[in-house]
């Protein structure tokens, strides 16, 4: 799957309450493209089978 085109990203940003100009949309898209490999690796990575699916474990780690 490729990153959505600038028009789609601009529409999404507008729907979410952000008014950003075309230049920012292009920069935003470039940043998303730049991290897409790392994010794709994470999407494909299996979750650990020991309950780590709940992000609350991340906060609990800091309270023990």
């Amino acid at each position, binding site marked *: 799957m490729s990153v959505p085109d600038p028009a789609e990203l601009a529409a999404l940003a507008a729907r979410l309450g952000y008014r*950003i100009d075309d230049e*920012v949309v292009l920069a935003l898209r470039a940043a998303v493209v730049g991290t897409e490999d*790392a994010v794709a690796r*994470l999407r494909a990575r299996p979750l*650990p089978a020991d309950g780590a699916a709940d992000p609350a*474990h991340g906060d609990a*780690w*800091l309270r023990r």
Partner: protein
Amino acid sequence: MSDLDAVGLLDAYAAGTLDPVDAVDDALARLAAAHEALNCTIRVLDDRARAAAEESVRRWASGTPRPLEGVPFGVKDVIDVAGVPTTAGSWCHGLDGDAPAATSATVVRRLEEAGAIAVSKDATTEFAVGGPHPPRFGAVRNPWDHERWAGGSSTGSAAAVAARAVPCALGTDVGGSVRLPSAWCGLTGLKPTAGAIPRTGVFPLSWTTETVGPIARSARDAERLFAVLRGPDGADPRSGPLPSFDVPEGGHLTGLRIAVPGGAFTELCDAAVRAGVAHLVDVLVAAGAEVVPGEVPSAAEALPIGYQVVFTEAATLHRVDADRWDRYDPVVVRRISQGIVTPAVDYLRALQFRVELQRELDAVFAGAELLVVPTCPSTAPRLPDGTVVVDGEEFPLYAAQSRSTMLGNLTGAPGLAVPTGLAPDGCPVSAQLVAAPHREATALWAGRVFQERTGHHLVAPPSAT
């Protein structure tokens, strides 16, 4: 007196060879000179500081000094000081412009209740996430080389401490913003465990990754400051009860096990930085520590995934100002806008990854008390474009700077940056001691022993001597 760290100042006050009024006057004069050379200060708190210094003199005279009585400190300008505006380095920092803060942040209040004296609001990159050239206040130059940046985002705080204007300052750290400018300015900077220090009264950027931390000239000062700053305040929901904080007093590290991971930590890392890490390890081993195996297999993913968390949270926090982004630093907009379009499933997967990274750290900490890694891959970035040079090759700032620091922000683990010497270009290099959560004492212990056996933290920039 500019050569004295906070502990040195306290010793001088106790011996009667110096008093807080003279020290504050000296700090204010040095701040003025440092600002003229470096552009490090947003506001000087002179009247407020002088009044506090008079009170400190009275307390020393009456034999009732508090733990940090009369120690001047700087405050990054994302942290509230009562009666003083908090600009966050921006034209757009609130709906009421430069209105003064009604109350001080918990961290400022705690230092002041311990007798320390706030003398300045220090320059920050815009909202602690912008580039080296914030539109409102401009770049902060590095005391070691005025053609370089002091680093960020706690940029003015580090420059002022390195310039020997103040012994210490408060910064914030979301991807390395205490540790990186500390590294590039030859200082000792502590990013504590997430939640160890309350963030009440701090302009927020990312609730998952952000901490307040001290920027100091020695590990012993960082220890004194952290002891005062830590503990819940009843207002920050991420700040809860803590275990005790006891830094061993001995100068021997017998029984301390250190892991020195490679992989992502050293793949993009200048030879001078790697030599500094090796030097730190050698000194710790000479003091009795043992090197043991330990790797963090997913460390390379910490930077992009950590930024995804930071920028998504930052975009959420800044949506309220979305109609004013045209007045933001364009670097801020470019960085945080990507967070607008992060799918919820990716953000939550990133938080799950945070747990996986924590478990990788658990595996290391099962056999070691500390990780020793570079703080950052290079010496300070060049101005105006902020590029860094690694083994003769130039890299963009954001591709390099947080490679070793974001791990601590994403997981919440504490890290102490300590200077390890000077590179051939004459600028400082730094290594980081990473500990398990709430084991800051172990990192501070090793850092203090290293500094007792070496003198890198005592070396001042040529412009400050």
